[in-house]
Every structure is written in structure tokens, then in C-alpha cells.
């Protein structure tokens, strides 16, 4: 249980690091809520989506399909973690 939680935490940290390093996050690290919509909060725009997809593909070694490019999969840190877990079978 503890191991599973740690793996999820690790993925979350990778996404948080990428988002804070590459997008303008109001309030920085403390301002990034894991369940907040990246689009509605103005953190990620349409070009940011493509950068995020490239990060996912290069970091986790998965090919993101066009039909997977949905807010349900990619529009918050928590959703991103769940998507990667699902796709990598972790």
C-alpha cells in the first residue's frame, strides 16, 4: 500500500515539476492545486497541451493517442497521474 502510494507520489512530483517549470502558475508551487483545472485556471493553453503531451511521451514512454487528448485525462495533476497509471499499468 505504502509502495503504491509512493509510486503515485513520484508521478505526481514529476508532473508538478514539469508544470511549474514550464507554465506560468500563479503563486508558484503553493498555487498549484492537484485537483485544479489547468485550463480553467489559465495555467495551460492550447500550445501548452502539446508540450505536456511530449513530456508524457518522453518521460513515461507511452504514445498518447489523439482520442486520449481530453480534459478528462489531462486537465489536472491528479487526472494526469491517473492517466499515466492507467496507461503504464502501474
Amino acid at each position: 500500500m505504502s509502495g503504491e502510494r509512493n509510486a503515485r507520489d513520484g508521478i505526481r512530483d514529476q508532473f508538478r515539476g514539469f508544470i511549474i517549470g514550464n507554465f506560468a502558475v500563479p503563486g508558484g508551487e503553493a498555487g498549484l492545486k492537484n485537483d485544479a483545472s489547468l485550463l480553467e485556471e489559465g495555467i495551460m493553453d492550447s500550445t501548452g497541451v502539446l508540450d505536456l503531451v511530449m513530456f508524457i511521451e518522453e518521460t513515461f514512454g507511452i504514445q498518447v493517442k489523439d482520442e486520449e487528448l481530453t480534459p478528462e485525462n489531462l486537465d489536472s495533476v491528479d487526472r494526469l497521474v491517473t492517466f499515466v497509471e492507467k496507461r503504464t499499468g502501474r
Partner: protein
Amino acid sequence: MAFHKDILRIDCEAETKRICSFIRQQVGDMRKAGAVVGLSGGIDSALSSELCVRALGKEKVLGLLLPEKESSPVSAEYAGKHARKMGIACETFDITATLDAFGVYDRRDSVIRAVFPDYDASWKSKISLPADLLSRDALSFFTLKVQDAAGNVRSARLKNEGLRGIVAATNVKQRTRMVSLYYYAEKENRLVCGTTNKSEAVQGFYVKYGDGGVDIEPLQHLYKNQVYQLAEHLGVIREIIERAPSPDTYSFVVTDEEFYFRMPYGTLDLLLYAWENRVPVGEVGAVMDLTEEQVKRAFRDFTSKQNATRYFGGAPPTLDSPN
């Protein structure tokens, strides 16, 4: 005012007078002798030129046709026909050689060949966003579509580097047109009259220092739906009114809806009005027969596009700028 389906209806005669007064005022304030309008064969430039003629008289309006080798042939045909109907002077300057000298086509094609190695100059190309946002939720990502000489179509999702390469090259078309318009404007002491409407301006659907590089924007307070109302009222020719709006900068025909907006203008304009005026999502859905999820999806797309293009407008920030 309660939100309803006809909320964008305008009093066309009153609006025409208001815009014409604005144009006359600006020409006077800038001490210009008239206006020049780039005529694309589309509805916005047709309306801008009609309004300039009403405001200043046909003798003071110059129409400029700026085609290039990938422009639709009907663009120049419709623009010329409309200019003749208005009785304005018109000049044509083909910008293909200028674009070639800058390497616009070669630079763009090299990006396309990195995706489709057998692509050559006989093929057509375009970029577009996922279709029909209201039916299927999808983030805004661009797909490159090519069509070979036999009519076979292939497509691939673009990465940011490829997208930026294609957009940067293609935007030189609008920027070259801006340079041409200012050549004629300065030579003849005219102002450059813009053609961007509100539906485009709010979502950043224009090129900074391209079609956004003008002296006045007499349509920028009008949604596209209202542009059509005024165009009908002022007698813009049927061919232009009935033509599907298109950026006309890609060899493979692409409409504004495919390229950027992801929904028809009629729906887009009402949703945009509701978003700008903070109409409650439930009320918007009830009036437009959409679910709350569909309305939220549209609002999210507007926010994303506005954020992505926010830096387009206004003067460049300076140390004297307010925060």
C-alpha cells in the same frame, strides 16, 4: 438583459451611422485623405470597405487585392466584383514573389516533409483543430492534413515545434499584406482600415502585426453574426455572403470553423456573448438547448484561446506601463 437567442440582433441603420461617424472621426483626427482596405473576398473586408464608402465616399476608398499562389481563385474574383459594385478604385499586387523571396513556402514545406517525407509542391496542406467541440470533448491540438495530387488525404498530429514552424511561415502572408497596405496608405496619405471582428479578436484569431496591424478596427465590436446582418443591410454581394469563412492561407481548403473555432459561427457567437457577459451556464444551456457540460466545454475553450493569445493586443509593455 435576459439572455435569449436573438440577443445579437442589431439596428443595422443606426449601427451603420455609428460606425461611419467613427471612421470619419478617425480619418479627420489622423489628418488622412481616405482609407485603404485589403480585400480578401471575404465578408469582413467586404463590410469594412462598404462602411468606408458610406463614411467617406467612394473616391476616398482604395481596395487592395493581395493574392498569392495558394489563395483560392474565387477570392480575387469576388473581391473584384464587390469593388466594382461599390465603384471604388482597386489595385492588385500579387505577393507570391515576396513570399518566395522570404522562403515562406520552402520553410513551411520542409516542416511538412519532416512529417510526410514524400510531400512535394504538387500536394496541398492545411492544419486544423478537432472538429465539433460540442459533440465530442477534446483538447485543442493541431493536426496537419495533406492531400496528394491523386486526392489521397493523410493526417498526423503536430508537435509544437512543427506547429510553430508552419504557423510562423504562414503568418508571413498576413504580415506581407500589412506591409503592402501601409505602402499604399503612406503613399496616398490614407489610413489602413482593419477587418477583424469581435468573434476573432476575443479569441486571438488574427496575426499580430499582420491583419492585426492596422490604424482602425471598425468591426471589432461586432460578432460575426452582426457582421452578416450589416453586410446584408449594406448590399454586400451574395457570393461573399454565402461563402464559408476561411483564412485562405492554406492550399488545402480549410474553414474558420475547422481551423480554429470548432463550432459554427451562429453557435459560437451566442456562447461567446454568454461567456463574456457571465451569463449563468444553466441559463445558456436552457436557451441554446445545450447541456451544462457542453456550455462549460465551450467556455473552457474560449478561456484557453484567450490565454494563449493575450499578448497579441495592446501596445508592447514598457517600464512605464501599469502592471
